[in-house]
């Protein structure tokens, strides 16, 4: 009889422990780019005085991602609908179109949150003018979990 009472009490306690799970994760996989210059062949951080940036979205109007003074880089979401993401950068008075090729696969963030996109950047990043002189891929894989101090590409000005 004591055992039955113990089972009953445990049942009540466990019933009261039902949890509610809440998703606080981001779904957008964001590329982190840093501006660099070369000093004696070695990369060095640099800051631009004015940065305007927007993505080229087919069938949609342009929408600014950045319009700021003094930027050492930018953080932008990648386009899951194409195998590339295209951005127009305006630094000071110069304009360049940056094309970042990539492929993607979905991955599970969690059952509560659902799925996100895992992008892999290809190494033939292109720019249309001489504003961006070269690039270096630091980390080719980009998921929806943003980590502090994470960097994916360096853009040399």
């Amino acid at each position: 009889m004591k055992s039955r009472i113990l089972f009953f009490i445990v049942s009540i306690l466990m019933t009261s422990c039902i949890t509610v799970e809440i998703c606080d994760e981001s779904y957008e996989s964001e590329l982190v780019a840093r501006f660099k210059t070369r000093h004696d062949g070695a990369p060095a951080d640099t800051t631009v005085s004015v940065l305007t940036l927007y993505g080229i979205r087919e069938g949609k109007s342009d929408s600014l991602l950045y319009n700021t003074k003094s930027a050492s880089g930018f953080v932008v979401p990648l386009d899951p609908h194409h195998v590339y993401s295209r951005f127009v950068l305006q630094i000071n008075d110069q304009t360049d179109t940056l094309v970042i090729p990539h492929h993607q696969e979905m991955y599970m963030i969690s059952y509560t949150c659902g799925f996100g996109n895992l992008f892999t950047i290809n190494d033939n990043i292109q720019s249309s003018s001489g504003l961006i002189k070269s690039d270096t891929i630091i980390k080719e894989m980009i998921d929806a979990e943003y980590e502090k101090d994470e960097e994916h590409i360096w853009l040399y000005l």
Partner: protein
Amino acid sequence: MQNMKRMKNISGSISKAALLLLALALFGPVSGQEVSGQDTLRTFGPRFGIDLARFLYILADPSEIGAEVSADFEIYKNIYPVIELGYSTISENEELFDYTSGGSYGRAGVDYNFLSRKDRSVHHTMTLGFRYGISVFTHSIENVVIPGGYWGDYLPEPYENSLTGHWLEIVGGLKTEIVPNLFLGWSLRYKFLLNPDMDPIMIPALIPGYGTGGENRIFGFSYSIFYKIPLFKK
């Protein structure tokens, strides 16, 4: 730019365990009952069982359906080789995807009875044993939506994968003979998943026979009724 989405999902696994424990408390053979009318000979034969807990689980989580049967035989004093077979399916409609998983499973192992008996005709057992489990199943998702603020929502193609899960279990439990050859019993299981990374895209929400694929170690319960075919006595 951060698209923050808040969703709520009430976990059903705890309520399943609570429901099962409640049933055990009210109806279970927690203490052994003496069976009258038996002679002093011990009967031997295959014992077949069906897991009643599967039906209680449906009350706690109607999206999960399954059944399990078992068979054991005392081949040597207190040694019971065991085979358990079953199937299980789950179908869940989440806010951002629909998920299904289903398949069959089998477990094989041995139980050792360490309940001393004064009378050979008493067949109650208190056992400790182990199992190796294997599950062959398919899981899939469809109607997936990956929210995207700037570029718009992305709708991937449906995904399906056929998988095989392997695990080990430590099993302890009781079986009480309530009338000659008819047993009620429960078991508590601690399971170790051997290949948790079986699918790089999606963790299985249900590995039939094991449980939630996101847990590398997990408890399980079963509450079964058994019938032993008394083939011979000695």
